[in-house]
């Protein structure tokens, strides 16, 4: 008796046969049909080396702060700290700058002492745009906003817009990640007696490495993170090694949130990006979702497909984890990024505006004229209702 290779059907485990009329492999038990090519691949898959599931990365993020630049003696002699008695905000600037408006709340700031910092920034992106540019952008920002209260726009303290160097921790790393998915393809067709629908389920796995550079996290507690993130991206290619001279004519903020505290935010964004990027490599399926053994085996059970036992064993060994990311040689730097800022108070609330001093992107939430909003809604409602009612009546 010659060695008979049993060609197992992946759907029901029955013995497949070569169908000469179709020129394909066909399972007489469940009607599954496969090209020779696909069938060959199946064989390869069962023989292929399986990823070492124990070696797959677990979420772990680690960054080394290799900075450690310290201010040299005398470098900060001209710098004073300005404090706002109203909100406690501090900015650092040239001692010759006159008492001026607080960029966080709009009240007055006064010099409260000499600047004394330990850590000196590693990099700076110098201001590319001027205060005039910032004022023009502000005017543009408030133009054409239907629900903006008229009185807000007519405020004149736009002159107080300030160029401030904002401290950022920049996180860079090569990362290793993996993700597992369950994917489905459905096909329908019919002949004159039956309607057929074919569902094929796949176990999809991706693992790889990729690099991220200079993910910025705002190191100042006074400046809202969301506001700074809205200004992104900053183009690091225009950054230069920090020199105190760059501060001349501008204010600066020093960090009061250290890099360790900022790691979580960077890790969060990193993890999400890795997930998106890996997902982007899974193409050609009708439906893809993260793998979960419950759902996967559940769906297979519903389909009534039996898998060969060695196939199931392979799955079982892989456990239930469906993603993981870890940093390889993560690094963190301290940089100053250019931002124009202005705060206005309106009806008791503070509205802060910011412009990316490098790219010119301008952001800032605006107040809403509630009365106008209600009236406008009512007007729209009445007009639309009247028109639609007339149309409906005409066609009844």
């Amino acid at each position, binding site marked *: 008796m010659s060695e008979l290779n049993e060609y197992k059907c992946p759907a029901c485990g029955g013995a497949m046969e070569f169908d000469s009329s179709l020129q394909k492999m066909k399972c007489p038990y469940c009607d599954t049909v496969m090209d020779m090519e696909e069938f060959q691949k199946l064989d390869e898959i069962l023989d292929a080396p399986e990823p070492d599931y124990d070696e797959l990365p677990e979420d772990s993020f680690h960054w080394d702060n290799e900075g450690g630049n310290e201010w040299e003696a005398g470098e900060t002699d001209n710098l004073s700290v300005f404090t706002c008695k109203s909100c406690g905000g501090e900015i650092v600037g040239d001692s010759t700058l006159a008492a001026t408006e607080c960029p966080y709340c709009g009240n007055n700031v006064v010099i409260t002492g000499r600047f004394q910092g330990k850590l000196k920034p590693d990099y700076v992106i110098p201001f590319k745009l001027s205060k005039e540019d910032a004022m023009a952008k502000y005017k543009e920002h408030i133009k054409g906003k239907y629900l903006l209260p008229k009185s807000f726009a007519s405020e004149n303290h736009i002159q107080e817009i300030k160029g401030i160097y904002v401290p950022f921790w920049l996180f860079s790393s090569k990362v290793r990640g993996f993700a597992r998915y369950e994917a489905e393809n459905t096909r329908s067709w019919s002949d004159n007696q039956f309607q057929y629908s074919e*569902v094929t*389920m*796949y*176990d999809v796995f991706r693992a*790889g490495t990729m690099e991220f550079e200079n993910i910025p996290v705002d190191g100042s507690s006074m400046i809202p993170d969301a506001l700074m993130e809205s200004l*992104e991206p900053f183009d690091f290619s225009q950054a230069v090694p920090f020199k105190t001279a760059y501060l001349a004519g501008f204010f600066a903020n020093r960090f009061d949130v250290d890099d360790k505290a900022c790691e979580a935010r960077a890790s969060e964004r990193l993890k999400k990006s890795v997930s*998106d990027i890996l997902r982007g490599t899974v193409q050609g399926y009708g439906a893809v979702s993260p793998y979960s053994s419950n759902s996967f085996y559940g769906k*297979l059970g519903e389909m009534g497909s039996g898998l060969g036992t060695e196939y199931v064993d392979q*799955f079982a060994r892989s456990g239930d984890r469906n993603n993981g990311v870890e940093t390889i040689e993560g690094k963190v730097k301290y940089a100053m990024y250019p931002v124009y800022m202005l705060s206005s108070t309106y009806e008791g609330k503070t509205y802060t505006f910011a412009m990316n001093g490098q790219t010119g992107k301008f952001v800032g939430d605006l107040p809403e004229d509630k009365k106008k909003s209600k009236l406008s809604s009512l007007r729209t409602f009445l007009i639309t*209702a009247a028109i639609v009612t007339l149309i409906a009546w005409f066609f009844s």
Partner: protein
Amino acid sequence: MKRFLAIIAVLVLCFTTLPLTVFASDYGSNVMDYADVLDDSQEETLEREIRTIRDRYDFDVVIVTVDSIGSATEWDYADDYYDDNGYGCGVNRDGCLMLVYFGPDGGGAYLSTCGYGITAITDKGIDLIMDDAFPKMVDGNFYEAFRMYNSDVDYLLEMAKTGTPYDDYGDSTYGDNSWNYEPVEHTRSLGGSQLGIGGFFGAIVAWINNKRHKGQLRSVSSKYTASDYFKRDSLAITEQYDRMAGHHVNRMPIPRNTSSGPRTGSMGGGSHTHVSHSGTTHGGGGRRF
């Protein structure tokens, strides 16, 4: 003593035979076997079944067999027999009559319905009864045929009591005994529904527009990803597989439109009715031998 016993015997005989005749005259006779296709005990059993039906449903089931119906049509004969002999319970004269007739042209069976009988025994119900009873008649098994008739009428009355009489529900016009359709009202007056539609769309458009205006005022939001900082072309996939894990083909038969055959004159569902000579409305249907 002998005389006394004899008198007792006679009295006992009288009292035992009397009830039968009492029953017969009390309930009238619902089994009128003029054609003599049933014997006495068979008639008795049928009458008993009919009594049970009347007690349960207040419904008069009648069986009539005749050698000939003369020049009359079977439906006229059946309807008139029912009406003229006062059959039927209640104001609407609820009941039905199965006429079996013979004659030179072969004869047949005809079922006439009246009052609630029209509702409970629809055209489809008549088919059911005929399907069950008629073959037996053809075989000459009239007793069994009438028993089927009684049994089916019982079933149909039970079905009707549940609110859904045995009928063909494929079409939508069930329950409409008169084949009149109410004309759809076409009015041009301004109704509540037009205002409702107007209000609905007005609200939606106003809401969308307001959301749009409010959106103009917002420009600050957090970033979820670090996609701007992904170093281009730095992606290297080190391991991957796409494995077919399961495969299943499901098939469903395409439903065929089964028409229940052409019914002459009927539009499907409900009961076909006509008015008899006495002015009463009857339903009915029959078959020829």
